[in-house]
């Protein structure tokens, strides 16, 4: 599709207000998720944005076991299970099959959305190689990392997505060691963007910003080629807070700067609110303490730990060349401007 046409198509389909959000659900009630599960909201948004001509592939995890609980399903669109680390390969196989069958005239030619979702382990740990491989091809597919910052389905264990010091069953504070999880959360979208030249769209989102989320999914599906979205989902079970505050925590994650919202489109990074206001200096970042103190998984934190996180976040916005995104502080070379 010609670039101008593509831009128009993508722009016209953007949903500008909540009132314009289509009502029809393609992922519906009757799933065995926790009260206040934001990952379920992500499923709802991706199904809603994608519509009926979609195939969704789900890796093992909370969004598998809870959504297709014991021989029943909440999905209205076709949905296929794949193994924990299999999302990338499964998306690739599905998209390749559709392309081959359409080209050879075995099925009708039409755009069919292929979305594969995976959790912390499925995308950032075990399944990373598969996701990376999928990103190197040119098939139209979207991979969504629904990040609840733990291996939630197995009753909350540490993964590479778990934040510094957070309590999980693998990282409980004890008499000898207060902080078991010292490693910092991986930045998955920057990894994907930096390493795969041909991907045209990647973004971070959180369902606390529904229009932003739905529009990002729509853009990813419309733009063509492999695309990637990383969603931060407050998890009342693992993060330990009253389910009614799920929305509030999502907003705080963005407003403290811990979770920057941005999108990468054809080589350009654009920030989304509220990260845009933070980066452009119109809004001051809320102290991370406000976010951390509301979650039981950080209840063992001392001032020292909170300061450490605050400093890490400060560095993201004050010292990185691309604030919040890429951990590169400077280029020690004079670039000629020819």
């Amino acid at each position, binding site marked *: 599709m010609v670039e101008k046409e593509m831009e128009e198509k993508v722009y016209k389909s953007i949903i500008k207000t909540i009132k314009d959000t289509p009502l029809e659900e393609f992922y519906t009630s009757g799933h065995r998720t926790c009260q206040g599960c934001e990952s379920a909201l992500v499923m709802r948004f991706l199904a809603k944005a994608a519509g009926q001509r979609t195939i969704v592939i789900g890796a093992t995890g909370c969004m598998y076991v809870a959504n297709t609980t014991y021989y029943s399903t909440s999905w209205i669109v076709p949905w296929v299970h794949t193994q*924990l680390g299999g999302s990338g390969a*499964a998306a690739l196989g599905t998209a390749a099959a559709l392309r081959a069958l359409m080209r050879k005239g075995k099925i009708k030619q039409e755009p069919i959305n292929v979305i594969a979702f995976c959790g912390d382990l499925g995308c950032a740990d075990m399944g990373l190689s598969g996701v990376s491989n999928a990103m190197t091809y040119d098939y139209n597919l979207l991979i969504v990392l629904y990040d609840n910052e733990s291996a939630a389905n197995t009753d909350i264990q540490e993964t590479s997505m778990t934040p510094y010091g957070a309590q999980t069953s693998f990282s409980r504070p004890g008499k000898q060691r207060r902080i078991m999880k010292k490693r910092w959360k991986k930045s998955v979208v920057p990894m994907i963007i930096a390493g795969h030249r041909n991907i045209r769209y990647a973004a971070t989102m959180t369902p606390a910003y529904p229009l932003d989320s739905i529009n990002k999914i729509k853009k990813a599906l419309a733009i063509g080629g492999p695309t990637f979205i990383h969603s931060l989902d407050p998890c009342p079970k693992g993060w330990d807070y009253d389910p009614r505050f799920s929305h509030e925590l999502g907003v705080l994650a963005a407003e403290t700067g811990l979770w920057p919202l941005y999108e990468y489109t054809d080589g350009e990074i654009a920030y989304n609110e509220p990260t845009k206001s933070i980066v452009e200096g119109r809004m001051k970042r809320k102290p991370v303490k406000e976010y951390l103190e509301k979650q039981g998984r950080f209840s063992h934190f001392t001032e020292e730990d909170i300061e450490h996180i605050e400093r890490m976040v400060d560095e993201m916005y004050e010292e990185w060349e691309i604030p919040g995104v890429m951990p590169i502080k400077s280029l020690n070379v004079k670039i000629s401007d020819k």
Partner: protein
Amino acid sequence: MTEVKKLVEKEVLMNGTQAVAHAAMYADVDVVAAYPIRPYTEVMDTISKLIADGELDAEFIVAEGEHGQFETVKHASLVGARTLVGSSGVGWLYGMEAIVVTATDRAPIVAIIGNRALDDPGAYGVEHNDALMVRDVGWLLVWVDTAQEAFDTTLIAYRVAEDQRVLLPLGISMDGGFLTHSEQIVRLPPKELVKNFLPPYNRGKYLVHPDNPITVAPQVNDDWVMEIRRQHEEAMERARGVIVEAYEEFKKVFGRYPGSTNELQMPENPFVEPYMVDDAEVVLIGMGTVSKPMKVAIKSMRRQGYKVGMLRIRWFRPFPTQDVIKYLANSRVVCVVDRDYSMGSPNRGGVIYHEIRSSLYDLDQRPRVMSFIGGLGGREITTQDVKKIIKIGYEHRDTPITKPVYWVGVRGDPW
């Protein structure tokens, strides 16, 4: 009656892997997922060249590992694509999660397994344990012993696996080295005949497509697993009849029995190849390329007066229990050549030994059974070895077996 078309288009020298690749091209596969591991890799080399040369229209995906490789074709198959995939040895094991699930998802992928010894240490030579790893989980498994049989069986594989009464994945095993890397003449039939034999792949109501909204493999608990396994087991049993049909169809369309050439006439039993078993007192059992040295040795020993025969097992799953009983019931000793092992199993015998023994158990009069573990890691089993096996078997026609298991030619044990 229509004019009998020329049933051989050309004769080409190719090895086992190339034969499979050509058959997959004839079958017009849609999606291929590749990842290198010796000795099966050449299947993928061959097929990618066929695609590049425009002889096959298919998507060729290079995976990042065998797990991804098998996941890719599993999903392509669920969406309705005909697929080709393969692996060997520990590569096959690396993909095992995806491989096992493919059977329960009822995705009829066709995988070629270049049988290779398992690590550690690394060894490229043939051993059957890799493919045998899935013998319990509902994969169809067949062993071929010539390049011609590899070609023919690949076409049969698509026909059987994709049949709506079956819908199970199928592994075609071929000995690493002896078949993957040796060239024989393969008679290729005219391509146009293939569509008379192989219908298009049609998943019916199990197709994953927006026109057929389904959920595939929801989480289940103890209320459902027994029933799911029972269904799967029933499909495996139905495969028996479908295999018989497919072989008969093949003969009708291509004018010869699968595996047969002008020089080599195959007896018409899909599951096993009986050779001189009618009056045999000792019968050898083997899978894969060992059958050919066995036949040479048998012919030689027959001339010396030994009443000996062979039963080659082709289809390991579903296991041809009735054929085994039929051909072995009147023998006195069965010498199973196991190009595999089963550490710590009863009598320390090999896998095929156990299956044969179990098949014969209910007979009132049954032959004695011995296990000859040999050829592991690519070691030869020569005609000389086979003659020795026959002699040992012969000794036990009337005397009870004291040593049920021999390791053929292992240095350190008497042989």
